[in-house]
């Protein structure tokens, strides 16, 4: 869903560049509560994994492909703001190194995939997990919410993208919205499977590295104790 140059008009990409720059600045400040020297390798590895997984386009219906997004994965592992920074880094490297996503559209891509498909979807996950958590085990409610909200994250990002395209006058909303949501509802199933499997594997081997797993203390504190 990386928007190239030319799809958005200047008022749209300009506004979203400002909004995303604001979120990124705040994230650099807000991430500190989750960070210490020991969590830094985890950020690098999560970003590397998401970059690699995003290269793996899988075929979906009708000569279309989809690929992993990873925002819910990053945020569930690292917490919302460090996860947001990881997504910004992935999108930045893709744009500057691999010409994937236009530079003018970088702010819009960050907004769609890290704010709407990221922060907003992740906070909905956390709220739902709290509501669901009373009846189910922590592990079950986390994995259930991970599956549901990683699907929702891709669909919400595609909705945001559709609105931007129509506000820019590129294509009418009634034309683009059903098409974008239709294909991303399928791609989102892949997102849900990958995210849930990865979170399940990490929960199995290192539950302390899953920030969204509330029985574990903050990863920073745990890691500091371990490596010290």
């Amino acid at each position, binding site marked *: *869903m*990386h928007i*190239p*140059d*030319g*799809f958005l008009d200047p008022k749209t990409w300009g506004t979203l560049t400002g909004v995303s720059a604001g979120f990124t600045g705040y*994230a*650099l*400040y807000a991430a*500190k*509560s989750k*960070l210490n020297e020991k*969590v*830094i390798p985890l*950020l*690098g*590895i*999560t970003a*590397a*994994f998401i*970059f*690699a997984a995003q*290269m*793996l*386009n899988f*075929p*979906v219906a009708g*000569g*279309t*492909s989809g*690929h992993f997004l990873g925002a819910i994965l990053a945020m569930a592992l690292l917490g919302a703001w460090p996860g947001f920074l990881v997504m910004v*880094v*992935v999108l930045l*490297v893709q*744009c*500057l*190194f*691999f*010409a*994937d996503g236009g*530079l*003018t559209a970088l702010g819009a891509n960050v907004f769609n995939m890290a704010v709407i498909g990221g922060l907003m979807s992740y906070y909905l996950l956390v709220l739902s997990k709290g509501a669901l958590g009373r009846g189910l085990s922590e592990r079950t409610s986390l994995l259930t919410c991970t599956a549901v909200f990683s699907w929702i994250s891709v669909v919400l990002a*595609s909705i945001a*993208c559709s609105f931007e395209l129509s506000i820019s006058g*590129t*294509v009418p909303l009634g034309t*683009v919205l059903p*098409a*974008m949501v239709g294909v*991303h509802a399928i*791609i989102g199933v892949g997102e849900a499977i990958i995210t849930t499997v990865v979170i399940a594997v990490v929960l199995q*081997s*290192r*539950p*302390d590295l899953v920030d969204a797993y509330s029985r*574990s203390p903050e990863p920073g504190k*745990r*890691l500091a*104790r*371990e490596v010290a």
Partner: protein
Amino acid sequence: MADDVNNVSGKKTTGLWIFFGVAMLVAILLAVFISPWASSSPDGLEKVAEDKGFMEAAEDTEPTWTHSPIPDYGDAVGTKAAVGLSGFIGVLVTAAVAMGVALLALGIGYMSKRRATEPDSS
């Protein structure tokens, strides 16, 4: 590494650096050996743009950033090795930039903490 120290559930957990190493290895293997065989069909947005007739909006626009060292993940070279190599480079660059950004955030955290604890130092 004392795994038992932070083992709340009493289950045996994987050593931290082993976990990091395996995760990084998985990322590299995916990028180098799987990505060359990924689907080359247009992605969701590209397909919609083709079907709904607004792909020209991007094709008729000069890219604003033309200094990408490896445009389209080595697709222009056309070999699977080129895609795999660009995946390998991408994984390392992404990991390095992410750790740099994390260090920056950590530094901002230290600075704001110091300012908060030493209000009369200025």
